[in-house]
């Protein structure tokens, strides 16, 4: 076997997963607990686990690879724990309270439905800059970019001095309509820089037009603040990862994943774009595998210890969300769309002694202390404990035997805290708990699918994440999906997905170009020139940034896009431009036609409404450069009998009764094999439960297809 050339690592809330890929796309995975205080520790343990699986040392691994991809939680934790930098803010006079007012929905965005209605629980997230370090400067640019009031420079200077005196570590500048005309932001930034220099202070200046020149000032403000607030520590974590990789012989720079699905170096100038990256990997991986096996209507489902993430890919197209919410801050950062509910194997179970009401979570036992059965000091029963009690998890083969599960202890505490309170036998109670979790996930999946307006029978379900296969049978039952697929590398699927991404930059700017339906060729060429100028400018910027990252210009592909709508509508549609430049009126007509095509696909043919005219709200460019990716290898189908993978029998509680289940080793299953339940298919990092009479078939790509009986 050749040595790996790509390492992909995904640090989640509970586990850090590693995938190693060699030149031919073969891969192995590793796993270790996430270490939030110093992520480098978990990173190294996880990499070591994978290296061991490959049969090489860490030094051999790191000195041989070309690419190290890391997606972590450092920045998000900085934001959640409010341990970021001390910031100051300069804004248009009169809008200083914007930061305190926030968006109304930020006060309840991650609440349950009951709490959304329960207004007394609404609470704005603590601001990243206190009001006393927010300074207003008299100036005004209107929505057309015209200067209404010039910058009062003396006010900017006073504000800068006050902030320097306040010992801030970063100064953010966010003015109204700076995405249309940034001249005032630029001037204030110059003044601040002069004052900082005079005071000989070490303060970085961030301007909103550089970070994200996109309409809607609250989201723009949040983007600038989060970039300034959280990324320095996040960058330090990433630099720690890079340093430790280099100390083991790695020769290049570490890469990380962008929320819209590309890779970038850890020197990325807008590092907040990498903050929501973890679950994105799964969607990328699913889209990639889907394309490879010729299946492009997919529902992805990722179940780990804490959350259940779902994404939809329709006709190979992933969905971008333009204003996602991160820790209850609304950002204008394009992000692959995911739906998430709290549901995972680490969920803590509680039973109310009076009402006998059972609640799952929302707290998760995480990796520290973890479920009771881990024996690391956990005292609250979790779903994973139920899985262990029912024999679904092999106590001697969890993480390949690295963690011995203390089933007796789990059973004792579960009996005392849950089963006895409910007054039902332990095994019945444990299965009931699992059933509740799977029902939650099942309902969420149905909701996500029906939200697409497409019938479930057209979709295949991809299931991954450490506990995805464990609960797959339950959460996919009865939906009527076309196919249900899981993977031998399910536990590291997100990390796998990261390795399928290309290097990417996305530059976009808000515009207001309204094309009337009656526009003649002369008018169209004026509009076209406007569009083209911005594309040329953005393309140059994207290419420069990628070149700075060490990509050869000849390897960089650029693709312009537009956010368009019929004039008067409130929502945009993203349109990939059908041509690289708009030079003639006909070119612009081609672009408009492309918009109408996309619009028709998303909505319906009869919803076209060109009579209203067309508005372009945003212009952008995506630049990409290729990278080695893992491939799935197609094998010949062999016999159906899976005896080569058979490793024993075990008593397992399924569907209300004890069964003697056949146990198989997942990695030893061959293409063509078919396993009939009751059975357990084990992997060091995951477990697939096959319910009685259900079937699992291994296809020529070594993917596992789950088929419910009857």
């Amino acid at each position, binding site marked *: 076997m050749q040595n790996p050339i790509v390492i992909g690592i995904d640090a989640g809330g509970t586990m850090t997963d590693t995938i190693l890929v060699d030149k031919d796309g073969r891969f192995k995975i590793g796993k270790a607990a996430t270490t939030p205080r110093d992520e480098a520790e978990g990173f190294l343990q996880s990499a070591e686990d994978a290296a061991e699986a490959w049969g090489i040392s860490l030094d051999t691994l790191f000195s041989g690879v070309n690419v190290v991809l890391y997606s972590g939680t450092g920045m998000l934790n900085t934001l959640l724990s409010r341990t970021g930098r001390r910031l100051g803010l300069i804004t248009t006079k009169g809008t200083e309270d914007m930061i305190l007012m926030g968006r109304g929905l930020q006060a309840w965005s991650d609440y*349950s439905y*009951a*709490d959304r209605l*329960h207004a007394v*629980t609404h609470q704005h997230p603590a601001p990243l800059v206190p009001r006393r370090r927010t300074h207003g400067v008299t100036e005004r640019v209107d929505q057309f970019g015209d200067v209404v009031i010039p910058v009062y420079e003396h006010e900017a200077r006073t504000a800068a001095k006050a902030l320097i005196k306040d010992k801030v570590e970063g100064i953010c500048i966010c003015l109204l309509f700076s995405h249309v005309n940034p001249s005032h932001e630029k001037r204030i930034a110059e003044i601040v820089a002069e004052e900082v220099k005079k005071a000989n202070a070490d303060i970085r200046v961030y301007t909103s037009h550089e970070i994200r020149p996109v309409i809607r000032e609250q989201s723009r403000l949040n983007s600038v603040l989060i970039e300034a607030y959280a990324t320095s520590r996040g960058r330090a974590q990433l630099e720690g990862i890079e340093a430790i990789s280099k100390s083991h012989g790695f020769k290049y720079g570490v890469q990380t994943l962008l929320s819209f699905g590309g890779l970038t170096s850890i020197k990325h100038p807008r590092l907040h774009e990498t903050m929501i990256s973890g679950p994105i990997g799964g969607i990328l991986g699913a889209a990639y595998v889907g394309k490879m096996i010729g299946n492009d209507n997919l529902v992805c489902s990722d179940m780990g210890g804490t959350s259940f993430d779902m994404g939809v890919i329709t006709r190979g197209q992933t969905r971008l969300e333009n204003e996602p919410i991160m820790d209850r801050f609304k950002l204008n950062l394009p992000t692959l769309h995911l739906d998430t509910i709290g549901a995972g194997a680490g969920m803590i179970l509680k039973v*109310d*002694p*009076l*009402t006998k009401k059972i609640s799952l979570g929302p707290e998760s036992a995480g990796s520290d202390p973890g479920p009771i059965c881990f024996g690391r000091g956990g005292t609250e029963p979790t779903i994973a404990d139920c899985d262990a009690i029912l024999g679904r998890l092999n106590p001697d083969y969890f993480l390949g035997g690295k963690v011995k599960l203390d089933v007796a202890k789990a059973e004792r505490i579960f009996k005392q805290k849950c089963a006895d309170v409910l007054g039902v036998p332990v095994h019945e109670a444990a299965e009931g708990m699992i059933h509740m979790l799977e029902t939650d996930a099942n309902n969420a999946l149905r909701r996500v699918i029906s939200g697409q307006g497409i019938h479930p029978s057209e979709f295949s379900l991809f299931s991954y994440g450490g506990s995805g296969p464990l609960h797959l049978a339950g959460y996919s039952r009865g939906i009527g999906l076309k196919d249900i697929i899981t993977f031998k590398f399910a536990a590291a699927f997100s990390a796998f997905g990261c390795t399928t991404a290309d290097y990417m930059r996305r530059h976009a700017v808000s515009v207001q170009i309204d094309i009337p339906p009656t526009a003649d060729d002369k008018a169209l060429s004026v509009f076209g020139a406007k569009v083209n100028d911005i594309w040329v400018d953005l393309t140059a910027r994207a290419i420069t940034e990628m070149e700075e990252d060490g990509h050869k210009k000849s390897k960089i592909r650029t693709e312009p896009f537009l956010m368009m709508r019929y004039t008067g509508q409130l929502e945009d549609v993203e349109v990939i431009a059908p041509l690289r430049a708009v030079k003639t009126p006909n070119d612009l007509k081609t672009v408009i036609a492309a918009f109408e095509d996309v619009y028709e696909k998303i909505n319906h043919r009869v919803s076209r409404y060109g009579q209203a005219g067309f508005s372009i709200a945003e212009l952008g460019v995506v630049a990409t450069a290729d990278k080695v990716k893992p491939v799935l290898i197609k094998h010949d189908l062999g016999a159906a009998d899976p005896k080569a993978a058979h490793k024993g029998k075990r008593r397992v509680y399924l569907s209300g009764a004890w069964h003697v289940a056949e146990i198989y080793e997942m990695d030893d299953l061959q293409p063509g094999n078919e396993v009939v339940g009751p059975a357990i298919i084990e992997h060091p990092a995951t477990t697939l439960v096959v319910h009685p009479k259900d079937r699992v078939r291994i296809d020529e790509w070594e993917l596992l297809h789950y088929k419910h009986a009857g």
Partner: protein
Amino acid sequence: MTNYSQDVIRDLIAGELPWHQTKRIMSAYKDDDRFFKVVAVLQDRVTWTEQILLPIGEHLFIVQKGKTRITKCDCGHEFGDYKKNWKLAANIYVRKDKRSLREIYPNSDLCHPDWMELREFICPGCATLLEVEACPPGYPIVHDFQPDLEGFYRDWLKTPLP
């Protein structure tokens, strides 16, 4: 039913419980014995020994004193029979001109003193601001509420009034 320890309720009342924990309590069903725990915590916080029957403000309580029930401040000052408006026995500062209103609203627009005045009710014992009223000038002092103690204990708490 949820159940919280006395310590948690004490921190809740003191405003020292972290927000996520406070939120969890707010979102959950109310515990059956919350009233008694709250009263016990409040009783611990005051220096006097009369039994608290009902808290009616941040610093004010209706307490059992011998055979009478009176309104009492946490500093110990007594306002007399709880059925009488305690405000009448408080020190009152009325802000009815621009200068005094400006102290409250240094940076913003003011109400017109001909149309509205602010009445601050201050404890004669500890000078704590107990209540503020915004009324048109001449409007009688508002009796905020007169609780039906007997009915509350009998029908809601299901225990006899001490």
